[in-house]
């Protein structure tokens, strides 16, 4: 946002999603698994603000319909849940990692086509690191991934492991370069 925008009190819109780089994950996960010894979990999620409007609800139910339709081929299971912060999670379960990426993309594409792309917070892919959870979060507004590794204890994160992951996989995934934007997401229901 430029200075002129600030001077005039901002534009009438949020930043639109950056060009979609989500699909980088559908190849990078192989490196994450083989190179880093992580194992992907058969689950992924996309988080957004559910607007209380008829239009938005319609788009959402159409999207779920679409996903259930394609589930016959892919076997992807779809659930949704609201978290304590008022955000909606659509949780996808599938043993095929590529299908998870595709299904997440279906949801974001549908929301964007309806004009609600700016409501999407992020997509989350879950991995396991010797039994401990590791997440890769895709920020739609930035078009970039960053790692989130919760540590034992109340709201602790393992920054060391996160930096290691960036060093190891940063060349292959479009990475968020500003670490102050590596926002945590607590209580990820994946």
């Amino acid at each position: 946002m430029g200075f002129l925008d600030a001077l005039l009190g901002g534009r009438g819109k949020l930043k639109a999603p950056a060009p979609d780089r989500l699909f980088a994950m559908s190849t990078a996960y192989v490196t994450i698994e083989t190179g880093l010894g992580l194992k992907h979990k058969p689950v992924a999620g996309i988080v957004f603000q559910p607007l209380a409007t008829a239009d938005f609800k319609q788009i959402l139910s159409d999207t779920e319909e679409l996903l259930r339709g394609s589930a016959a081929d892919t076997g992807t299971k779809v659930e949704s849940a609201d978290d304590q912060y008022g955000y909606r999670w659509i949780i996808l379960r599938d043993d095929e990692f590529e299908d998870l990426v595709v299904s997440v993309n279906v949801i974001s594409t549908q929301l964007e086509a309806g004009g609600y792309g700016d409501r999407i917070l992020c997509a989350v892919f879950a991995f396991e690191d010797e039994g401990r959870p590791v997440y890769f979060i895709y920020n739609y507004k930035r078009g970039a991934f960053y790692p989130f590794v919760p540590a034992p204890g109340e709201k602790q994160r393992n920054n060391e492991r996160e930096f290691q992951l960036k060093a190891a996989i940063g060349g292959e995934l479009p990475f968020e370069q500003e670490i102050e934007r590596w926002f945590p997401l607590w209580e990820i229901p994946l």
Partner: protein
Amino acid sequence: MARSRTTFTRDSGLQARMLFTLFLLGLLYAAFVAILFAAGAGVGIMVLVIAALSLAQLFLSDKLALAAMGAKEVSPEQAPGLHAMLERLCIQADLPKPKIAVADTPMPNAFAMGRSQKSAVVCATTGIMNALQPHELEAVMAHELTHVKNRDVMIMTLASFFATIAAMITQFGFFFGGWGGDSDDGAPAFIVVLLASFLVYIISFFLMLALSRYREYAADRGSALITGRPSALASALVRISGEMQRVPDQDLRAAGKMNAFFIVPTSVKESVATLFMDHPPLEKRLAALQKLEAQLQAPAPAAA
């Protein structure tokens, strides 16, 4: 390509009024500077001194404000809910995360401080955190984040720069008596400067208040934009303004100097003319938010 539909239309009326106010301020200040320099030497040094003071204010204001409120920065461990809420709002607003502070006072209020997006501090009182529902608090925090995003502290400080000079000349003008250069034309120049300063002070006072009100409307819009829930902010404003009148006087007085960046001014008096208010009246803010909610609820325009 997805069509880029905006949830809310741009309020070009508000932007036009803001631009006009800024234009008037600029015009006023340009004339003022011309008069100051026509009046002679000595003034230049004073302008420099005040520039330094303003700069200091810009860099220290956040610390001063926090100290004045007794607010303390809180870590994610101390206020996990507040941090998590702001983190999500920051992703939505595409902002770096500000510092988060909490002031331990029953008065329900929140404010944003800091000269830039990177050095911003957002503060909530324990009063507002107790008084509001989570989604209402979220709307208030989004309002404060919009102040950060719109760089309101910077803009109001810049806008008030010459108003500060004018005020100082008006107040201390008599002590600067001999500045006018020659003793022959010194006296009339001094009177011209004093009169001009007084006028600039009065006019800029009202323009600044108008500008501040427009920034509030813009922050309300920004909150609606970030959360997608204009009515959540409306209900928060109603709830806060109701609580405000029940709070003991000493808290109101203690916080008096911080009004400019509070979400609701501490003295909500119906009798005070809008012209004198740095926040728009509650009814007008509610009406603006209701308009946004109506835009949100309206069926989407046919696909373009």
